[in-house]
């Protein structure tokens, strides 16, 4: 297969799911006639019809909850949010119902639903359309959350999400839909809960995911120019977390840099840092370096927004402060 981008990979995943399982249906705002706000579902309405590719009213609680009910009733719904920021209107559905039914019912009820949502900042949409909330949802037992940063992971994780008997949120960074990469020709899946070492190294472990992976790779390049070998880990799954891969790396490198786009306060890297110090404290040569977005609402102005988001300069500065490298 030639190189394809993340949007193509997701579209392929939707197409094969609709084709392969009559119980799969997609629902969301403007996913049909309009083709999807980010064109992931473009063309599917024509091929599969309005019963399986459903435009919904702008009623997040109703259509997300209906997706959950449809999953309980034996269907395999993919529910697309136009933006993860709009999921705030349906947190009750996702958390109190979707993520809780199995436990509250003592194991009687399964909710095999897939939520998908664009997320992230960097395109000047200001405070209400730019935030990354996937870490909040990853804090909820009963949820699974994945965040692909390559086309192969997007397809492989979507396949795993569709095969999963529990609710899975797939977050897609708005700046990454056109990011290209190789996708294997033969059928493959990417397991949920497994991180990927994108670049092996020996001097410092960089942990990141999603769009911040681009920053992480930049940092690794800059360090390489100084003969510092960075191991870069793409978490890919935020719940469950693949901590063994992270810990093993830290035991080898003794230095850690964590990069995410969430607000630093309450970001998922705080959890990663806590677990590293619990399980690998004696291996650390210094404090864990950590970079996230500045703790302010997203500004509209490009310069302000860029200075709010994580960057390789900020990451290198944090690394220098922590380890003097």
């Amino acid at each position: 297969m030639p190189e394809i981008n993340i949007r193509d990979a997701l579209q392929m995943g939707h197409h094969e799911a609709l084709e392969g399982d009559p119980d799969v249906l997609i629902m969301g705002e403007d996913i049909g006639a309009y083709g999807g706000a980010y064109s992931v579902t473009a063309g599917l309405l024509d091929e599969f019809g309005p019963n399986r590719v459903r435009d919904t009213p702008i009623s997040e609680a109703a259509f997300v909850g209906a997706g959950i009910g449809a999953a309980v009733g034996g269907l395999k719904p993919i529910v697309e949010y136009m933006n993860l920021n709009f999921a705030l209107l349906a947190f009750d559905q996702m958390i109190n119902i979707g993520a809780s039914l199995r436990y509250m019912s003592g194991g009687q009820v399964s909710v095999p639903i897939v939520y998908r949502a664009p997320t992230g900042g960097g395109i000047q949409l200001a405070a209400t359309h730019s935030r990354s909330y996937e870490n909040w949802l990853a804090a909820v037992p009963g949820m699974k959350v994945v965040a692909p940063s390559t086309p192969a992971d997007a397809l492989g994780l979507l396949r795993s999400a569709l095969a999963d008997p529990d609710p899975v949120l797939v977050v897609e960074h708005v700046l990454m839909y056109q990011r290209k990469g190789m996708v294997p020709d033969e059928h493959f899946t990417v397991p949920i809960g497994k991180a990927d070492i994108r670049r092996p190294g020996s001097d410092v472990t960089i942990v990141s995911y999603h769009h911040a992976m681009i920053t992480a790779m930049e940092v690794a390049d800059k360090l390489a120019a100084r003969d510092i070998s960075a191991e870069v880990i793409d978490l890919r799954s935020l719940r469950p977390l693949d901590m063994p891969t992270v810990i093993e790396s830290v035991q080898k490198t003794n230095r850690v840099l964590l990069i995410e786009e969430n607000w630093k306060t309450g970001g998922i890297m705080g959890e990663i840092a806590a677990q590293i110090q619990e399980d690998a404290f004696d291996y650390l040569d210094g404090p864990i370096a950590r970079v996230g977005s500045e703790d302010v609402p997203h500004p509209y102005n490009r310069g302000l927004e860029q200075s709010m988001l994580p960057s390789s300069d900020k990451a290198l500065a944090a690394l220098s402060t922590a380890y003097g490298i």
Partner: protein
Amino acid sequence: MQAEAVDTSSKTELLNLYQQMYLIREFEERSGEMYTRGLIRGFLHLYSGEEAIAVGAISTLEDRDSVVTHYRDHGHALARGMDPKVAMAELFGKATGSSKGKGGSMHLFQASRNFYGGHAIVGGHLPLAAGLAMAAQYKDTGGVALCFMGDGSMNEGEFHETLNLASVWKLPMIFFLENNLYGMGTAVDRVHAKGGDFDMAGAPYGIDCTVVDGMDVLAVREATTAAVENARSGAGPAYIEAKTFRFHGHSLSDPVKYRSREEEQEWRKRDPLSVLSDQLLKQDLTTEQELLEIRKSQDEVVREAVKFAQDSPEPTGDELYTDVYAGD
């Protein structure tokens, strides 16, 4: 709507309605006792006074239909066929309860009977019911979803969103409003723009509306039968409002300072059990003795349920970690 269906139902069916309603009443009264003895904890919301609705409405359903309800859910669970022992054990938090002690009073489930809760965020369960209706429609099972909701849900966004969605997609479902006139301690007319006038609340969404006497099980059954038949035939959702009254407070911790004793007495005169027994006795379909036998038999059922719950084991510690995900 007044019921005129007495003659058309068989005696056994009618006595079965009485039996179910009495079972719920006794179950609730005994649960209340167990709560005051500290054997049931958390919140306990009793259904006493509202039995005609769950029993009348659910009696119209088939196995393939789904039921979803709010947190005052014991009556619906029992009417849908949950074993009173299993229900009581759940209230006690025991391993033998419907959710193995993980759900409690507000979250009763019995998937084998398509009974999907027991939900305790007001109005939050309406979309779930719509989704169950959507699955039935999509799979063409002929099933419908019956969704009970309290008057508190009428001012929640989910109510309006879900009625609209159900109407647009012609979902086979019934929105059944149990209007017991108070959202916890707040009288509905104090917090609703139309003074708690909910009889046509489905109309803005193009949904047929019916008002029924919530203390009359036969009237409830008749109204629900029509709505279920319509929904099953593809005519789309229906909305039914039944005015009713909870004989106890919102929960067991409610001192009930917000309504008058006179109002309570007026409603107790229309106790749904007496309404039905009067109808049956008047038409010579039963005798006082027969009704007494039914009550005794249900007293025994509930006694056994309490004993079962008391004698059942606590969940083991490892149950804490099971059922978070499949395969746990």
